């Protein structure tokens, strides 16, 4: 047998992490965002517990602004692999009419994602939440531990993190506290796509290029999924061949022009890209160091 390739090494590490979570926590849960990283996470969970079932439920924080195709994929795929799915929404905020245009992206994320997540975790009594965040996504994530401590308010203290050595993880917490666990910490975007390709992992069709109705503003393509997207004077949607590089809420996720309609083509596109993946996610740029601020408050 030759030297193990990097994907096998990353896979082995992630499986080890998931099994530690299953063994050391009372009520673990997996955060499921429907995106490509979540799809990889699900496959790794299937591998970790084979031949048994996935040992924790999936929790989806639904802002109600996700793309229709995402919700369809979520429901059919989780049913197909027999995973237990919990959906949590901050219904109170939705009823009050929360959306990014009324509240701004920061307040909207705060209510529909951060608060909904913390409430959803509390409602389920979950003591560990597995997420698909990668350290290569954003600079503050580069410093976060794989097993990342959250106080009883769900908050992260970047200056007071537990040192993490070898593959020995300290999972001790007091009642009310929790850990967020990131098995994909050491994966890059390229690793994720390679793995999806090698493992033939199903992903939401929105990652693949096709003609879609978009508002075109300079380099940014805005999907017309929600009725409240304000058009500028004279602005009309155009049919553009495009795809999503990352999936979030439809008002805050831009598309990119692309012909990549297969995974190898996406990888090919990625190689030639000189833009990072979150560029079209409006929320990371609303304030310098904004991801770090959100994370301190409890955002994933």
């Amino acid at each position, binding site marked *: 047998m030759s030297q193990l390739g990097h994907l096998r090494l990353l896979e082995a590490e992630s499986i080890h992490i998931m099994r530690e979570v299953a063994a050391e926590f009372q009520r673990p849960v997996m955060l499921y965002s429907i995106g490509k990283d979540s799809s990889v996470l699900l496959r790794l969970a299937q591998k970790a517990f084979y031949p*048994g079932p996935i040992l924790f439920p999936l929790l989806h924080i639904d802002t109600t602004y996700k793309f229709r195709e995402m919700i369809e994929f979520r429901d059919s795929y989780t049913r197909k692999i027999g995973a237990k799915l919990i959906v949590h929404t901050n219904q109170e905020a939705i009823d009050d009419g929360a959306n990014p245009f009324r509240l701004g992206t920061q307040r909207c994320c705060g209510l529909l994602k951060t608060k909904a997540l913390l409430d959803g975790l509390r409602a389920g009594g979950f003591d560990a939440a597995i997420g698909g965040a990668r350290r290569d996504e954003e600079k503050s994530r580069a410093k976060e531990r794989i097993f990342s401590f959250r106080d009883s308010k769900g908050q992260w203290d970047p200056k007071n993190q537990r040192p993490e050595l070898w593959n020995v993880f300290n999972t001790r917490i007091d009642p009310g506290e929790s850990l967020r666990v990131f098995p994909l910490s050491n994966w890059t975007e390229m690793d994720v796509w390679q793995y999806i390709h090698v493992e033939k992992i199903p992903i939401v069709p929105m990652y693949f290029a096709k003609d879609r109705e978009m508002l075109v503003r300079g380099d940014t393509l805005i999907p017309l999924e929600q009725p409240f997207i304000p058009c500028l004077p004279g602005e009309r949607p155009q049919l553009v061949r495009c795809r999503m590089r990352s999936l979030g809420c439809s008002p805050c996720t831009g598309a990119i022009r692309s012909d990549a309609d297969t995974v190898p083509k996406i990888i090919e596109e990625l190689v030639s890209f000189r833009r990072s993946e979150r560029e079209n996610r409006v929320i990371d740029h609303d304030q310098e160091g904004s991801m770090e601020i959100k994370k301190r408050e409890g955002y994933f």
Partner: protein
Amino acid sequence: MAAAVDPTLNFEPVFEIEDFLAQEQAKDLLRFTTAGSVDDGKSTLIGRLLFDSQNVYEDQIKAVTQASVNRSAGPIDFSLLTDGLRAEREQGITIDVAYRYFATARRKFIIADTPGHEQYTRNMATGASTADLAIILIDARNGVLPQSRRHAYIANLLGIPNFIIAVNKMDVLDYDEETFRAIEAEFTEFLSNLNAPDAYFLPISALAGDNVVRRSRHMHWFNGPSLLEHLETVPVYNRTRSTPFRFPVQRVVRPDQTFRGYAGQLASGVVRPGDAILAFPSGQRSRVKSIETFDGPLFEAVAPLSVTLTLEDELDISRGDVIASAQQVPEVARQFEASVVWLNDRPLDLARTYLLKHTTQTVTAEVKSIRHRVNITSLEHEAADNLEMNSIGVLHLETSRPIYFDPYLQNRITGSFILIDPETNATAGAGMIRSAIAAERDKRPIAKKQGRVTPAERIARHGHTAATVSLGPRPQLAAVLERKLFETGSAVAIVENADLTICAVLERAGLLVLRVANERADWDLPEDDEQAANQIMASLRDSGVLMPREELIWGEGI
């Protein structure tokens, strides 16, 4: 301001996606750590490595050039590509371990960027714990500083097998060879005193880019490969493959009555179906029946793969147990000596009990004594009655239950542990086991040993694991063999024509059971009783049932 990317870097041959995918999958992985003092230019070096190897996206460069603090005079402050958190951006120093990822056509890399400031020894140890290679930065203007020695000491303590010593800021000294050679000579001597691995010394300028990705045009006196060339080609010592098989059990997998497997990650070695194993602490023997994965059964699993093993026999195995090669068993001890890096602001307190997590088991541990503390500046040993954060000491520890380990120098997974403060749940210490300590029996009150006698204690006393040997209908052979085993100190019993439950009872008592019955013997044996007995003795030794006497002293620690 937009980045001025060297146009020659953008040359790419005709891109064939199938070739690319094949090449990608063949890439291996090198984890390395970087250490240097505050102003050695570490973040700049990594930023330069990422930038010159085209692993930085344009919008990241844009964000960096727009950032509110821009500390260098140049067009791009490379260090801002790696310094993440707001607080450190404001303070201008790296305050924590940051992980960075990049890949070249040959290899994928994970960098643990760790700070060099005096109070952050713990971060360096953290980054070093998983690294295959350490880059130690020395500022050419300052030469070898106490910090440089300390970084090399910690990297070596954490068992990193490859060193690069990068002498930085050569541009400031007009690329002077003599300065470089003096540093090389001084540090080489220091490293050999440490018994550190051989190091690759190279002169660089992170700011100007000399010898980082491309070889320098300013130092004709130096012909070695650039930093990146070296990183791409240095062999990643797959030491884990040649070390004995160790498999700490993470979970017992029992989805239904028909399947019983043990999930875990190989800490070291290779395993195949049919391999003879010993499970600890039970000391029970079996063979690997199959290696199960989601992708189908494997004919071989090599460390560090995560798999599920099934065994030929139903053994009593649970999380925290270790399945190991029957030929080369781990050491076992309740008392051992370990180097410990203290990580917490609450100093080590000998009066308190800590939790010790070793592979997948957590036990309670007491620190019986501090053998010495390492003076972090002079690296000399000194007496101490506590360890404070960022200090390193050699401790004598005692655990509530025996642990099954290999010395850290031989196995970084089964030789390491963390200490957890049970009051605060903080990760208080990181330990590297040096050796077992034989218990001082005469000083220990007998009452201290409580509860059922464990199989491990029996193994330690008898010098063998429990086993039943079927001899066929040969009572004479049983007598000869009994005598031989007895003379080696074994606890042995002959059972004639008894049913297997009796054998099982005797096995539970840790005995070697010689079974005489009208059935086939376990081996094809010679007619001659003496020869047959010798052959069986040899088989018992080869298979690890009888343990060599020199290994047994470790059992004393139980």
